[in-house]
């Protein structure tokens, strides 16, 4: 499965080259005008001009796709770093994971023999059909942005149908996620990875028969026969057990079980294209933040640790990596990219923040305030997250924001440690 790659100019039809060029100009304009980072709009122009562009740009490369509700950006960065041990990798590192963002990443590195692409879960069937991936990584599926993505169970069915058609793809899947297991079971030879998961509210009834899922320790099963497969790779504490029975130690700079689980998935996926677990783990230690997440920035007398959590499953993990006793600023918006519906706040166990100093921030801080009041959390409200930081006592602050709140904040805080 080695990528046989020629420079793009030698094989791309004129139309694709022209469309990519037009896309690059638009991306440059987008960055210059301050309207965006360029990743999305550039791809959008290219795709409009040449609908086959993704197929052409993805052809004859070894493409690894990463999808799931949470951890796409982190896992794809881990995987890209690992695969770079082999050769140049095209990678949508900015988290632009719609078709246009995927296309931009390929167009920026036309001669890279490998591509590691995170893909929005709803676009996986379409993107996979275009690029015929060597590897598909399925991290997890949970409720997120129901107004945009739709219900997670219908998403699982779509992925299952798409996977059934992927004959040349190694499907690397998290067997602790019932929905992921159901979808990945459609593959001929899935590579199962055992992880650690806290959010299970979307794994209580079977996606196949609707009956209850019975949990016993790590194992789970449904009456219809869907059971937790035996994983070839298993995260155990800070180590990953590999298929040959040996273990490699993770030495991550990123906190929490969610990131250790992402790393286990990345190791299994990298192994599919010939990167050994030892090589891959060595390359993961250099990752200190993910597009600003987990970065600590100084603001006045505050050391602010930045975290992203945008849905209940993400929050379930984030609540466990908060600094003990540090004040917490929570910033929530409800733009299209966040989901317009704030109901998800009621699936987060904010009760666990009792006893802390909490500031409700963001454009929808009133929604959050109501949730915190019912959780009996002592909070104050300050819509501007930067003002919220300034309002707490000097020292460490944990700041957790959802997607657009995080993006807006990054632009307003110093870009150093």
């Amino acid at each position, binding site marked *: 499965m080695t990528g046989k790659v020629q420079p793009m100019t030698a094989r791309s039809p004129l139309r694709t080259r022209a469309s990519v060029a037009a896309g690059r100009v638009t991306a440059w304009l987008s960055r210059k005008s301050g309207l965006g980072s360029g990743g999305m709009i550039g791809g959008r122009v290219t795709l409009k001009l040449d609908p086959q562009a993704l197929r052409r740009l993805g052809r004859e490369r070894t493409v690894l796709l990463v999808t799931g509700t949470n951890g796409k950006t982190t896992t794809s960065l881990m995987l890209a770093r690992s695969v770079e041990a082999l050769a140049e990798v095209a990678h949508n590192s900015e988290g632009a994971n719609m078709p246009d963002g995927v296309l931009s990443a390929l167009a920026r590195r036309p001669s890279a023999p490998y591509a590691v692409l995170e893909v929005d879960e709803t676009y996986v069937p379409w993107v996979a059909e275009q690029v015929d991936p060597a590897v598909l990584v399925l991290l997890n599926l949970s409720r997120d942005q129901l*107004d945009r993505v739709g219900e997670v*169970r219908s998403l699982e069915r779509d992925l299952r149908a798409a996977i059934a058609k992927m004959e040349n793809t190694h499907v690397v899947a998290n067997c602790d996620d019932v929905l992921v297991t159901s979808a990945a079971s459609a593959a001929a030879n899935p590579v199962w990875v055992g992880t650690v998961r806290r959010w299970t509210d979307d794994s*209580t009834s079977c996606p196949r028969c*609707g*009956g*209850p899922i019975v*949990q016993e320790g790590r194992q789970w099963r449904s009456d219809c026969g869907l059971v937790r497969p035996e994983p070839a790779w298993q995260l155990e504490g800070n180590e990953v057990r590999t298929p040959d029975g040996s273990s490699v130690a993770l030495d991550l700079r990123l906190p929490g079980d969610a990131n250790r689980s992402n790393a286990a998935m990345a190791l299994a996926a990298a192994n599919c294209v010939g990167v050994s677990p030892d090589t891959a783990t060595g390359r993961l230690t250099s990752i200190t933040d993910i597009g600003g997440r987990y970065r600590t920035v100084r603001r006045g007398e505050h050391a602010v640790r930045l975290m992203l959590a945008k849905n209940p499953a993400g929050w379930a993990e984030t609540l466990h990596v908060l600094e003990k006793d540090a004040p917490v600023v929570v910033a929530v918006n409800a733009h299209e990219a966040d989901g317009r519906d704030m*109901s998800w706040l*009621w699936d987060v166990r904010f009760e666990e923040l009792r006893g802390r100093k909490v500031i409700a921030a963001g454009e929808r801080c009133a929604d959050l305030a109501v949730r915190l009041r019912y959780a009996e959390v002592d909070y104050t409200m300050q819509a501007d997250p930067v003002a919220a930081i300034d309002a707490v006592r000097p020292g460490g602050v944990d700041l957790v924001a959802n997607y657009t709140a995080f993006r807006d904040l990054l632009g307003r805080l110093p870009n150093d440690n």
Partner: protein
Amino acid sequence: MTTDSDRRTQFAAEPAKKSSMSTARIGLILPEVLGTYGDSGNAHVLCKRLQWRGHDAEVVPVLLGEPVPNSLDIYLLGGGEDGAQALATEHLRKRIGLGKAVENGAIVLAICAGLQVLGTRFRGSDGVDHEGLGLLDVVTEPGEPGTPRAVSELVAEGGAILGGEALTGFENHQGRTKLGEGSIPLGRVVSGTGNGDGTEGAVTGHVVGTYLHGPALARNPALADLLLTWLLGHELEPLDMPEVEQLRAERFAAAKRRRA
């Protein structure tokens, strides 16, 4: 096998306290299938609004495969997608607890798919008709081909039982619901879709259905307290919650801007 208690604690907002005769028991019905998005929040809101007024209250999750007790005070049914909705209906039709409880005066709040399940009949997007529980006099169909899914903020003018208090929430559904003579609307749509004919929700006795999904009671304290007034048998002093007033004002203003 500790399964059932594990599954149960997952849905109970608070560890269940030892209940006494006077403890209000709020049933969260089939949260695994009728709990798409924040639906357990309604149980939590009712529980807290009782506790803050000095009453004992607890949330009792009723899970798939279990009998549905007829002894609970309030039954909450949340939203769910088609397959789950059919499964929930089948479960509830086989176990007569909910119908018996309603005969005895129990209070029911059913959201979105829950509203459809409580009607006399609903048709899923697969075109299959399902007999509902018949606790509300409503029939739901997906609407004519090409009917868009209703996904937006919903504002409604509350009916007389809400003292005219406006309702706010988010809706996300395909079904269009027609009321028969046995139910009255909960409100009249100001913006959004609701039932699809200008009305929103349905009420028969102490059974209430609405398309305000997720934690509707968090945004609509008048609706929460209406249910609790029925439960306690007397009027309640309002709770002072400025954040709820702020949230309502923001949502009404946002809906008004969109209409303008």
